[in-house]
């Protein structure tokens, strides 16, 4: 391969106390690709997302950014690299309004004070691009519907023009129309050269959208697939464990498929 992947994990491990939740994880995300991260409940998908976004840093393994090893110890580090995340629990502040949540931690200032007008203007621009059901920008987020909250979280992740986007079950709380809005958006972002890691339980969406799929099972890699060539049955078998640990390391991937 010519250029190194945007983001690569090599042998990443994460434990909570004595429980090893992630073991020797390998993962690559390339620019302009959507990688689906699949796995049963409790497989460690969300934990992996939190490792990459610096919420719960890994204690072992290497994270490479454009081929060069980097340290991600805090959310701040990930953000500086250009990694944005939509967490499964959304991580919004319910008491803040939509604008406040979008710009939390990177408020626009004017003469040292918050520039609410400019922040609100950019918020409404961004949301209008993303969805047709733009919520009341000044309502506290706790009073929005779960779909609207999901949209707010997605909008927030896009605000800093990230290069890698991690989406942890972004469509789980959405209806049909909003789900297709989100999937269209992911499609667009890929076309603009963003690398996307998409966690989803919907095989239809994965098939339609993803370029590659990585399967986790009990905290380990349990297969990498080219979504265009692999069959749905193959992928599901890997998720459920019918095919155990086929390619243990990424290096074997090319040979395998």
């Amino acid at each position, binding site marked *: 391969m010519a250029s190194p992947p945007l983001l690569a994990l090599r042998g990443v491990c994460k434990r909570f106390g004595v429980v090893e939740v992630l073991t020797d994880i390998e993962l690559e995300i390339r620019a302009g690709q959507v990688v689906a991260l699949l796995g049963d409940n409790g497989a460690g998908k969300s934990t992996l997302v939190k490792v990459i976004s610096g919420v719960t840093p890994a204690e072992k393994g290497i994270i490479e950014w454009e081929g060069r090893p980097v340290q991600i110890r805090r959310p701040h580090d990930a953000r500086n690299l250009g990694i944005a995340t939509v967490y499964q629990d959304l991580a919004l502040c319910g008491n803040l309004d939509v604008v406040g949540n979008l710009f939390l931690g990177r408020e626009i200032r004017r003469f040292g004070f918050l520039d609410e007008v400019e922040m609100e203007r950019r918020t409404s621009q961004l949301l209008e691009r993303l969805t047709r059901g733009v919520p*009341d920008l000044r309502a506290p987020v*706790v009073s929005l519907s779960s779909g609207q909250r999901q949209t707010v979280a997605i909008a927030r992740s896009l605000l800093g023009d990230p290069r890698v986007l991690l989406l942890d079950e972004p469509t789980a709380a959405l209806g049909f129309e909003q789900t297709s809005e989100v999937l269209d958006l992911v499609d667009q972002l890929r076309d603009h050269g963003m690398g996307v890691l998409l966690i989803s339980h919907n095989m239809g969406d994965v098939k339609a959208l993803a370029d590659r799929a990585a399967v986790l099972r009990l905290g380990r890699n349990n297969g990498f697939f080219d979504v265009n060539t692999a069959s749905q049955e193959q992928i599901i078998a890997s998720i459920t464990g019918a095919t155990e640990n086929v390619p243990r390391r990424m290096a074997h991937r090319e040979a395998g498929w």
Partner: protein
Amino acid sequence: MVKGTHSEADGTRAAPSAPTADDRRPGRRAALAQVIETGVAVLRRKLSAGELGSLPVVLVLAAVWITFQSLNDSFLSPRNLSNLSVDIVGTGLIAVGIVFVLLIGELDLSVGSVSGLAAAVFAVLNVNNGVPEWLALILAVLTGTVAGTVQGYSVAKTRVPAFVVTLAGLLTFNGLMLYILGTSGTVNLDEDGLVAQLTSYYFTNDAAAYALAAVGTGLVFLVSQQDRRRRMAVGMPHRTFRGIVVRTAVLAAVAFTAAYLLNRFQGLPLALLVFLVMVAGLDIVLRRTHYGRQVYALGGSIEAARRASLNVTGVQTAVLAVSGTMAAIGGLFLASRITSVSQGAGSGLLLLNAIAAAVIGGTSLFGGRGTTWSAVLGMLVIQSIASGMVITDTPTAVQFMITGGVLFAAVVIDALARRTQEAHGRA
């Protein structure tokens, strides 16, 4: 038409551009109707979304004042109202600090002790050791800042809830105060000194009170108008000019009535001026700065704040530093009121009153909701009840029960507002 607009503004407004270009085309009549409808719709939305703000406490205050005025018509006399405005300052300043702590979802139990400690530091330095007043004053306030910073840093680092850490602080700082005061017991302050003047000085010139009222309302008007202009320039939803005028007029009516009444007694009290300036200043800090936004964020979700790369340790430390500082300043005003510092300084009901004031004023115990103005409104309620009881010769026992009832009501409203908001979100 009425129905249509309501349901639109109630739920998710299709586009947040309601009162712009399109709506300005219809005739003036329709435009006015639109203004009123939007106003009503916003109010309804706020009510149904559990954002009551200061409405309940204003109603309670009105009820308290009407009740006592009907029992004894000297209650709303210039003298009594003027005294009331000075009596709320000491505890009110402490309550402002409590608002900060409540906003991050914590509680500071040490503010009473810290206020007593600061007063003792001042008294011992100035009276017993001849340190100049201004220096003793600064050192006393810094004592509060340091006490708060130490506690805040401990809370942030140990992740022990603040009420536990500050409970230890309550005892420690009270002990420290007794130690500093030593056997002398009570220290009398200089009757004409700087600290005594804090609550005894009045701007007897009528112009002072009116100037404060004019400057306050003028600033509010200018800021709203500037905001409106900028929003219009970029085609964003904005208040109507009429709306701004009405708001300013209401504010001006309150401010100038208060100024008039204060001038009928001894003029604008220095203590009230300090209180209002600090409350307004800290309100701007909380609602218009990056620091303030972080305070609210921590109260909303500490985990979300952390994931948004906020400096959680720094904010927690700073918030308790603010409450320690405000406690010290409040303590000096309380000492000023009685021109002495005794071993009882900062004890008794002070802590409970400061917390009650913040909560009665509408600051949420669950964190993330409230403003510094709730300290003013809450203190007005508490002190009005106390003063009304004195005027009507009612026993203290009844005063406690009534204040307790009001506090209970405030807590229930707070909890209900929170529930309504969440239910609204789930719908």
